[in-house]
């Protein structure tokens, strides 16, 4: 046991003496969270809205007031010609224009239907889409509260999708995805590189010729990364909570347990990669290409899995981050217990066992 701890200590020394490693370990998660949280936000704020009110009655004026009191929109002025819409967009004075039809209130009361046109500047498609969704939400809430019988002149199915994120905060979606990404990056990439480094410098030979057992060598190499990855996972949760108010509605213990499982999985992947490469560069290349890209693209982190072609959907099913993200979203945002995530957990557990067995097998073959 003593010789094992001496070995683990050495691994910590490697980590704490290498500025680049430290930077990746502790700088990267923080930078990524801040970046994703603030820059790649799917939240909208202060979108400029122009109003073309062709009836100027009570209903349309109230609706306009509702829009601007929602906090997401600021007035860009009133217009009264169709041509002015294009002008507003081109000059950048407005992103969206709301058009109330003539006799808006009359139609609403007499015919139970009235038309509002929402026109968005789609040169920034993302913001446009989001703005329209927000606008629809604001208006629908208003008309429903005004008169239960009014048939709202547009059909919106956003309500159910935003249920756990009423304000549609982008960070809510990003935190679980970022955790999946960062943990894979640190656990798998760093371990595969650190083991490859021992091979490259010939120290692996020395260790293998020493009384240390192969499993002690591997465990000794990954132990520091287990601890550091775990610290990182909790840092992400804490940062999400402190900076972006992302809650942990479910059990924190359960979340930690799932994180440990996922870290183990990523580490065993890292070991598996390292058994197949000779150099650090190769390890890095395979980790980045084989793990990071799929984690970003196929896990549902950024692009919804339902929108992918069938083949890619199957492919995403073998991506560990996909299941991890589902579990973390459930625990953090919905507050569900183990009963609702056991299937996904079982999948992760199965994958972990598979990768550990594969890594052990590869390691033994290499020894012969």
């Amino acid at each position: 046991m003593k010789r094992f701890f001496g070995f683990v200590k050495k691994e910590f020394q490697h980590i704490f003496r290498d500025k680049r490693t430290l930077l990746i370990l502790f700088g990267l998660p923080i930078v990524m969270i801040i970046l994703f949280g603030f820059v790649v936000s799917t939240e909208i704020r202060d979108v400029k809205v122009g109003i073309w009110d062709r009836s100027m009655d009570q209903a349309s004026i109230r609706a306009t007031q509702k829009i601007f009191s929602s906090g997401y929109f600021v007035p860009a002025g009133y217009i009264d010609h169709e041509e002015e819409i294009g002008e507003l967009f081109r000059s950048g004075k407005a992103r969206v224009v709301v058009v109330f039809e003539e006799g808006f209130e009359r139609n609403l009361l007499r015919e139970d239907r009235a038309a509002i046109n929402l026109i968005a500047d789609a040169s920034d498609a993302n913001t446009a889409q989001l703005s329209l969704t927000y606008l629809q939400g604001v208006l629908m809430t208003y008309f429903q509260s005004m008169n239960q019988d009014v048939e709202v002149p547009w059909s919106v199915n956003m309500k159910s999708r935003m249920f756990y994120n009423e304000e549609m905060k982008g960070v809510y979606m990003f935190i679980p995805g970022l955790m999946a990404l960062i943990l894979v990056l640190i656990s798998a990439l760093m371990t595969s590189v650190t083991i490859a480094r021992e091979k490259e410098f010939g120290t692996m030979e020395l260790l293998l010729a020493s009384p240390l057992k192969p499993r002690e060598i591997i465990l000794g190499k990954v132990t520091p990364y287990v601890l550091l990855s775990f610290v990182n996972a909790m840092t992400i949760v804490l940062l999400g909570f402190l900076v972006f108010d992302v809650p942990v509605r479910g059990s924190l213990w359960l979340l930690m347990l799932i994180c440990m499982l996922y870290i183990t999985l990523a580490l065993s992947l890292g070991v598996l990669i390292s058994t197949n490469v000779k150099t650090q560069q190769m390890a890095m290349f395979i980790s980045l290409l084989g793990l990071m890209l799929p984690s970003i693209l196929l896990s549902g982190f950024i692009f919804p899995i339902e929108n992918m072609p069938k083949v890619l959907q199957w492919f995403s099913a073998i991506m560990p981050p996909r299941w991890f993200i589902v579990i973390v979203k459930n625990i953090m945002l919905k507050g569900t217990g183990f009963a609702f995530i056991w299937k996904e957990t079982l999948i992760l557990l199965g994958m972990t066992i598979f990768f550990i067995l594969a890594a052990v097998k590869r390691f033994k073959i290499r020894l012969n």
Partner: protein
Amino acid sequence: MEVREHIIEVKDMVKKYGSFTANDHLSFHVERGEIFGFLGANGAGKTTAMRILCGLSYPTSGEIRVAGHDVYRERERIKRKIGYMSQKFSLYEDLTVSENIHLYAGIYGLGRKQIVVREEQLLERLGLAHVRNRLIREIPLGWKQKLAFSVAIFHQPAIVFLDEPTGGVDPITRRQFWEMIHDATEEGITVFVTTHYMDEAEYCDRVSIMVDGRIDALDTPAALKQQYESVNMNEVFLKLARS
């Protein structure tokens, strides 16, 4: 001549990689306390054989005992009794001289007090006491090589395996290094060394010369020179390689 104990005993060792035979029925023994030179061109199968003796790989067949233990069943015991130095002088570049010593000594199960005492003696003898807290990457290659060797025998193994231990260092440092090897044998450590510098073979008690996976010659340097009517080991080697 006194009959000395055979610390390494190899009978019909074969190692195959697919259809390629790296070691073709090797049979030899190494006596306790001698310097055994394992010579041959690159690719002759030296490293393969040495890796098997160190427990780094399994032979395909053959009967092999190292320090009294069977290489198939008692690898763990063998590993405790041997030291190993690779051709890369493998110390950790980002650890200090002292940390490297403590790490390897710890891996071989030495106690802290014992390590501190021996470390003191060692650094004194090598004249490296002033760099004990310097990182390995900051010290010259020659010092690194001496240190790597000292670390390999720090736990006083029965045998030390040296894999081309003099690559890339200047002749004077090489000369000094061979003096260190001699000192180690005085302490009763058997030295098993591979090299392709034929002049170094002169320092060995006995040498074996491998060609294409087989041992073509095995004797003392003097006997080999006489047998092949050569003035030095280089000539012996060339004659062997041509035949």
